[in-house]
């Protein structure tokens, strides 16, 4: 069970996207990369809205598109849902009308929540009879998500679904996506350029940069400094800590820990308020072009990076292979 994109090339105007990867059709795959990297184009291609110049797209063994074999299943027959960044609700219908549009086109053999059920789960009950033009950005996002789920796709693609949401609502939305993916057994592919969202959601990651899929694999394998370094701003550099970390009293899929928020200690820290202390060994010490020094510590759950100064490096006399403790302020997560 997987989505397979092989030797694919898509063009749109002067922009071209090349992709070759496979990702399991389970859990959540995050498509990560800077703005303009081609992430949305990748989703549209999988959904069948862009035509391939060459290559093959397969889903669960079924060929969706194969240029050499002149096979192409149109978008409406793929069973792949797509939630657009701008929601794209139908303006001549109410919220309920939009949901019914999806429900009435769902094949009889596909199970999915009915309209009233999904409205309750996504807190849309009071909006059902409203025309869509009067909704706020966040409300539109929720209606678009509900509409996609009601249509019972086999795979759901989401393009920056939290763009219209801020801080706390965003956290809630991320948690809801994880819950929905698990409870509906609905695999998802989510585009984001926010490293925190990526770390929290991802079971698998596809990294895109400059029209190229540069890496793909499990979140813990791909979201390392070596692979991700080139995709991030200096201040975002860091490492992903796997599940088990507690943020705001809630266990999350993963957390992106910025190197600037990590302290290194050579002895077990005592009398600290920081809740999150990881023990490990120093895997590498690298000097950055900007003047800082990145210390990567291998812990039981993966790697964690810390950015320190020359002075600190000398005072602590850090060496590769030695024991070290990484201390992260919970507030920074």
């Amino acid at each position, binding site marked *: 069970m997987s989505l397979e994109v092989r030797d694919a090339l898509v063009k749109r105007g002067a922009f071209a996207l090349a992709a070759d990867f496979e990702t399991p059709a389970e859990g959540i795959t995050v498509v990560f990369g800077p703005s303009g990297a081609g992430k949305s184009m990748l989703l*549209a291609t999988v*959904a*069948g*809205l862009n035509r391939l110049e060459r290559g093959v797209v397969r889903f669960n063994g079924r060929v969706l598109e194969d240029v050499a074999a002149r096979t192409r299943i*149109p*978008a*409406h*027959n*793929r*069973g*792949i*849902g*797509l939630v*657009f960044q*701008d929601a*794209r*609700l*139908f*303006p*001549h219908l109410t919220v309920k009308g939009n949901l019914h*549009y*999806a429900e009435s*086109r*769902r*094949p009889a053999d596909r199970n999915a929540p009915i309209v009233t059920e999904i409205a309750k789960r996504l807190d849309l009950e009071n909006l059902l009879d409203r025309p*869509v*033009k009067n909704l706020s950005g966040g409300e539109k996002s929720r209606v678009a998500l509900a*509409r*996609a789920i009601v*249509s019972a*796709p086999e795979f759901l693609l989401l393009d920056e679904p939290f763009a219209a949401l801020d801080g706390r609502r965003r956290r809630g939305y991320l948690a809801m996506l994880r819950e929905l993916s698990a409870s509906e057994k609905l695999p998802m592919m989510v585009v984001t350029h926010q490293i925190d969202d990526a770390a929290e959601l991802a079971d698998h990651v596809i990294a895109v940069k400059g029209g190229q899929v540069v890496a793909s694999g499990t979140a813990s394998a791909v979201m390392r400094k070596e692979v991700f370094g080139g995709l991030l701003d200096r201040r975002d550099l860091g490492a992903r800590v796997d599940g088990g970390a507690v943020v705001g009293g809630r266990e999350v899929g993963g957390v992106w820990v910025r190197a600037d928020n990590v302290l290194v200690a050579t002895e077990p820290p005592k009398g600290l308020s920081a809740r999150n202390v990881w023990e490990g060994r120093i895997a590498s010490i690298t000097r950055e072009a900007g003047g800082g020094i990145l210390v990567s510590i291998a812990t039981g759950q993966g790697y964690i990076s810390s950015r320190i100064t020359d002075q600190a490096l000398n005072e602590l006399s850090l060496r590769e292979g030695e024991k070290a403790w990484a201390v992260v302020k919970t507030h920074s997560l």
Partner: protein
Amino acid sequence: MRRIAPRDMVPAMLSPEELQILATSLNVAGRAVIFSLPVAIFCAWALSKHSFPGKAVLDAVVHLPLVLPPVLVGYLLLIVFGLRGPVGGWLKAAFNIQLAFTAEGASLATAVMAFPLMVRAIRLSFEATDRGLFDAAAVLRASPWDRFWSLALPLAWPGVLAGAVTAFAAGLGEFGAVITFASNVEGKTQTIPLAIYSVLQIPGGEAQAWRLATISMTAAVAGLVAAEVLQRWARRRLEG
């Protein structure tokens, strides 16, 4: 004093002949619009698409009546749909239908002349619809045919009505093609402009011509106002 209901005012103001002329005009233009509307919607939809083979040809054919002299359109219709024409002869033989020199023929000539106006208005409405919505419908399993009925048409509907009303108002005034193909038969094919033409041939007919001109202008202005109202409604609807 007896109160006059508005309903009685128009017949009271118009002579039986004028009523007959107005009825003929409304009938001819009305039928022209009703029967050509589905074809116009189809052409407008096709022309609003990005590209397909023969698009330029279809575009040219649709717009031809706009640039040809109306009398030539009437003559071409006579050649094709006249009793000795290929289509006209067949219609007469197979169904005993005659178009030339009949009210039905006047409707056909009016429809052909008003067709480009109708297609242009409807096409604008289709083109103003956000293309992204069709992608959104496609990933909800709506086929192209389904998308046309469930999205394109409902969203463009006010624009379609506006196009129809504009064509109707223009159709009321069609002259050259009608007089050539359907002739100027009182009570059958004599619409308002044809009647104006007739009375102007008679010495001292100016007063009568003025009365007919007033009817004509009233109908045209009412049509344009209605079309404008519909256009505004269309814009509001598409804003999303």
